[in-house]
């Protein structure tokens, strides 16, 4: 294109009006204009997020419903999927490999099923977190909302999924002789803390995943390693009793193992406090607060950069 038209454009775009002579920044300041898409302060961000709570809830429920809407059995799969999952693990670890060392059958089956469900909660939150931004670029580029809504929404979706699994879990517990009691109520604080922990982790993964979508390929392996190291299908202290103490300690104090043990302790009659590491509730709370806060701040720090292609 010829240079003359381009020069013309420059002349026209800054017409000789009242504010002539001011730079863009001065003009903006004078009329109270703000930078579009700038990152709000942390408290303002929390306020915006709270304002979007109905969207966050609606989005997570919509995702959950949409998941099985094409299936003939429909929402029945919410319960059937975890049930089948539990059956597969029982078949392999309960019947074939027999990893129930140190536990009776009555304890081991609920132990295993609890482990699978509680770990799946963390696992799927992390996996959904990785794709929360990178998989929803269309949404991020079309509408305004605090981006943290997405990872939080996905974690909530997983929480609702877990609630369906708990129906199966309760049935399994009763079938193996652990009847409902007051101690079952301890599941609530345990899962609330795990939810905060998961959300923090999902927020961290969402920021990393938005930069490096390759993480979606890598994470399944990381998560599987974490699962086998957390004693989902075996008791850590029993399996590692010949090894140095610190290995068992590290494994037992990892957050996944902590939350699994808490739910098992609450649910299963034969799984007493002796199986839990010391100060387990404090450690559970510390993990939740630490990862929850770190994740939130870490995610917020890059708020204005999400959506870049």
């Amino acid at each position, binding site marked *: 294109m010829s240079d003359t038209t381009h020069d013309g*454009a420059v002349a*026209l*775009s800054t017409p000789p009006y009242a504010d002539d002579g001011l730079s*863009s920044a001065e003009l903006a300041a004078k009329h109270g204009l703000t*930078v579009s898409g700038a990152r709000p302060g942390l408290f303002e961000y929390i306020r915006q997020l709270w304002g979007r709570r109905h969207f966050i809830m609606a989005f997570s429920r919509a995702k959950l419903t949409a998941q099985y*809407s094409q299936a003939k059995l429909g929402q029945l799969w919410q319960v059937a999927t975890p049930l089948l999952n539990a059956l597969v693990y029982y078949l392999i670890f309960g019947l074939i490999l027999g990893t129930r060392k140190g536990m009776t059958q009555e304890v081991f089956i609920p132990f295993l099923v609890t482990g699978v469900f509680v770990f799946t909660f963390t696992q799927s939150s992390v996996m959904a977190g990785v794709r929360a931004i990178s998989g929803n670029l269309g949404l991020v*580029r*079309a509408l305004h909302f605090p981006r943290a809504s997405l990872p939080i929404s996905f974690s909530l979706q997983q929480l609702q999924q877990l609630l369906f699994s708990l129906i199966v879990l309760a049935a399994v517990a009763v079938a193996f002789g652990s009847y409902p009691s007051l101690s079952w109520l301890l599941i609530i604080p345990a899962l609330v803390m795990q939810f905060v922990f998961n959300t923090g982790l999902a927020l961290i993964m969402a920021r990393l995943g938005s930069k490096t979508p390759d993480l979606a390929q890598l994470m399944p392996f990381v998560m599987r390693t974490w699962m086998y190291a957390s004693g989902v299908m075996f008791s850590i202290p029993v399996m590692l009793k010949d090894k140095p103490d610190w290995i068992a300690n590290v494994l037992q104090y990892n957050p996944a193992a902590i939350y699994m043990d808490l739910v098992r302790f609450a649910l299963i009659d034969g799984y007493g406090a002796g199986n839990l590491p010391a100060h387990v509730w404090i450690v559970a709370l510390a993990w939740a607060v630490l990862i929850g806060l770190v994740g939130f701040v870490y995610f917020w720090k890059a708020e204005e950069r999400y959506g870049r*292609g």
Partner: protein
Amino acid sequence: MADDKNPGRVPTVIADDVHIVYRVNGAGGGKGSATAALSRILRRGKGESRGVRKVHAVRGVSFTAYRGEAIGLIGTNGSGKSTLLRAIAGLLPTEHGKVYTDGQPSLLGVNAALMSDLTGERNVVLGGLAMGMSREEIHERYQGIVDFSGINEKGDFITLPMRTYSSGMAARLRFSIAAAKNHDVLMIDEALATGDRKFQIRSEKRIRELRKEAGTVFLVSHSNKSIRDTCDRVLWLEKGELLMDGPTDEVLKAYERETGK
């Protein structure tokens, strides 16, 4: 001070030397094989990785929009019109330069928030929430949205999943949801008003209403007629650069001459 001379000129959007760069993974070098990707990573130079290709979509655009203006954006396909709109809305981060706005500009469009597996009913609520409406507002306007879309004219379709809709029906519902909210600075990307003749007339009327309520309107369109009808100022973008900025007639004439019409 100087404001008194031009009382009407309140800027609502200031773009100051805006550059936008897209980064595309896996498009570099032309070779898509695994070994090519690996060698790209291994040969990674300082700073920018070589597997990433950069697309400089908007190059140094500056302009100031004032309250009450309706601004058309024209240019051939891929000239950066939609990208520039998204940057003004604060949805795409700028590589360099800044966009200052009065309040929160919004893009008219809600497609990305809707889910085809959900019923039209739930999508109206979800879309409304995604645009930042409150639950009460949505409840109030729900019937209006459904009536406007005309989805229920041929039976109770709003309770069916959106994937069962014809493309025209889905487009009508999307437009109806998007147009249900009022905006300060409104940006309309082309080809929104799809659907049959009857619906087009209805949606054009709605866009005019939205224009009246909004402080400043941006319209991207390939139809010179609709630009002429609605805009008093036009920005002509080409290859990401602002080629011309001026009154509608002047710019459109130059554009038509250039594109050989």
